[in-house]
């Protein structure tokens, strides 16, 4: 494995600016690595020719002193972002052959900053899942293996499983993800990388295949907190094409990064100590609390009383919005068409064959909870509990500046596990869903290894639009954890 692959995004940026390396060299190293790690099934589409072309253009701009913030940096893009002229699938059969005639705002921002597209990463179908197991293109393998069962293939988490795996396997320098209920943070935890979901509204949703529009938010997946901050800075920004896009500009995150946590008040919510949680998760959490205390933060016990209702609320609101968003897949305008005797039959056949099992389930649940006579009992009720969840956080943030929790209730599980029972799979997002419903920014930072040698992440949550505090606390955890472990396949090259 080339030494170039060990550089963080921040380091690569310096070397590119100093002309110690070229983007073409760096991109070639990543293309070779993508080929060497192809068995992980983390990419749905690779774009090596386009990558080299973009790298060449980046080198030209670097030579002229016109470098953008991500000039020459090779990135992977979750295959939920529309990329002009490049197949975009949402990992669904129903989008067969879809070549977007336009580019999403987030990726437009990245290319304008000079980044290079390596390829499109695998995900759970329409981002619905926590294991990457619902992809039409097959499961993604986590580059990590456990010490007790080293032959067993593990999931990278989901839904941004491909993005997490390519960053962990060093087959992209960083990647985009999207997070609706934990889809950036949980795979980051499972794969030993940093994943950040900014405040709802920070990144434009325009050109991202929609799942649940009041929750969907794009964010970076990277090797370090600094890398994630640099990337988010380039992704974020107001966009008139997304009516929920935040008009306020985001503060410079790299400026607050190393300010430390001295004097900050960090909340520890009692309700996140859930029944049956493995002791090692509690231990990692306690370790995080001790680290922040040692760095001068004040630890405050807080209560978020409606936490246990977050998942049931989410599993009404997200499917309801999905059933509405996914109505557009009708076999008429793009993707798969399965013929039938009439127009209605063509719709029903196309959607039966085009959607996988989990997507069909969620569309049906969503249709039911929105249907006449049940709307108040389910959807309206869930929106009211959502207000209470938000109020819990508002009240907590009167007392604290940030909140520390585990990211996920376990380490990575085996491919195929938890698939027999949809509700069991949903429990993976127990710690990430509440902040999604409230719209808050959050980050997952690798904190250590489980007893079986797999990464465990800690989650930091902040106030609305306060990404600065989130990366500040995240960076303090990262410094204290000094997490240097890598997957065996990276160690062995």
């Amino acid at each position, binding site marked *: 494995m080339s030494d170039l692959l060990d550089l963080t995004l921040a380091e690569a940026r310096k070397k590119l600016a100093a002309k110690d390396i070229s983007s073409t060299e760096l991109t070639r190293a990543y293309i070779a690595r993508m080929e060497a790690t192809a068995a992980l099934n983390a990419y749905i589409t690779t774009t090596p020719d386009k990558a080299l072309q973009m790298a060449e253009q980046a080198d030209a701009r670097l030579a002229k002193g016109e470098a953008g913030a991500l000039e020459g940096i090779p990135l992977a893009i979750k295959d939920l972002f529309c990329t002009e002229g490049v197949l975009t699938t949402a990992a669904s059969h129903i989008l067969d052959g879809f070549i977007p005639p336009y580019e999403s705002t987030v990726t437009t921002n990245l290319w304008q900053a000079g980044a290079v597209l390596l390829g499109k990463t695998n995900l759970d179908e329409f981002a619905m899942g926590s294991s990457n197991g619902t992809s039409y293109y097959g499961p993604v393998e986590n580059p990590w293996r456990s010490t007790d069962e080293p032959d067993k293939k593990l999931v990278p988490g989901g839904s941004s499983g491909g993005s997490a795996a390519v960053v962990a396997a060093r087959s992209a320098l960083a990647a985009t993800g999207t997070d609706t209920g934990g889809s950036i943070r949980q795979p980051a935890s499972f794969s030993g990388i940093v994943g950040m979901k900014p405040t709802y509204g920070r990144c434009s949703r325009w050109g991202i295949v929609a799942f649940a529009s*009041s929750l969907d938010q794009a964010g970076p997946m990277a090797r370090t907190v600094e890398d994630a901050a640099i990337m988010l800075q380039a992704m974020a920004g107001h966009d008139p094409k997304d009516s929920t896009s935040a008009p306020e500009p985001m503060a410079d995150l790299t400026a607050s990064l190393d300010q430390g946590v001295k004097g900050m008040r960090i909340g520890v919510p009692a309700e996140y100590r859930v029944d049956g949680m493995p002791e090692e998760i509690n231990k990692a959490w306690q370790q995080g609390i001790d680290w922040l205390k040692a760095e001068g933060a004040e630890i405050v016990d807080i209560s978020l009383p409606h936490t246990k209702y977050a998942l049931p609320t989410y*599993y009404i609101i997200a499917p309801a919005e999905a059933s509405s968003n996914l109505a557009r897949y009708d*076999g008429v305008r793009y993707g798969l068409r399965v013929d039938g005797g009439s127009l209605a039959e063509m719709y*029903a056949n196309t959607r039966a064959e085009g959607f996988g099992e989990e997507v069909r389930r969620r569309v049906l649940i969503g249709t*039911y909870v929105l249907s006449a006579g049940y709307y108040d009992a389910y959807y309206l*009720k869930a*929106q*009211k509990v959502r207000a209470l969840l938000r109020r819990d956080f508002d009240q907590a943030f009167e007392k604290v500046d940030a909140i520390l929790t585990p990211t996920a209730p376990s380490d990575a599980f085996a491919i195929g596990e938890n698939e027999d029972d*949809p509700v069991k799979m949903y429990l993976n997002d127990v710690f990430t869903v509440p902040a999604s419903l409230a719209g808050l920014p959050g980050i997952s930072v690798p904190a250590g290894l489980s007893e079986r040698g797999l990464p465990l992440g800690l989650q930091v949550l902040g106030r609305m639009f306060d990404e600065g505090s989130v990366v500040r606390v995240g960076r303090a955890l990262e410094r204290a954890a000094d997490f240097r472990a890598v997957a065996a396949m990276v160690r062995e090259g």
Partner: protein
Amino acid sequence: MSLDKATVASIANLARIKVPDDRLEAMVGDLNAILGFVEQLDEVDTTGVEPLASVTGHSLPQREDAVTDGGYQARVTANAPESVHGFYVVPKVVE
């Protein structure tokens, strides 16, 4: 509340997703498990609580009612499974 086969068949029709008869039973089980899970919300007292539909706190922006984009029929229909003369083609709906 528990769903039966007839209700699931009618939801599937509303959602325009064909569920073959031999798959209906399994789908009924899955959906009831999910509904059983979400019905925990009945425990929460939400009297007088305003439903939260948007977290941003912003009112939706408005702009002048003017054409700002468009005019690419060929690009828009380029991904259609079937199109003729810049239009989408669907099975005949009027006899």
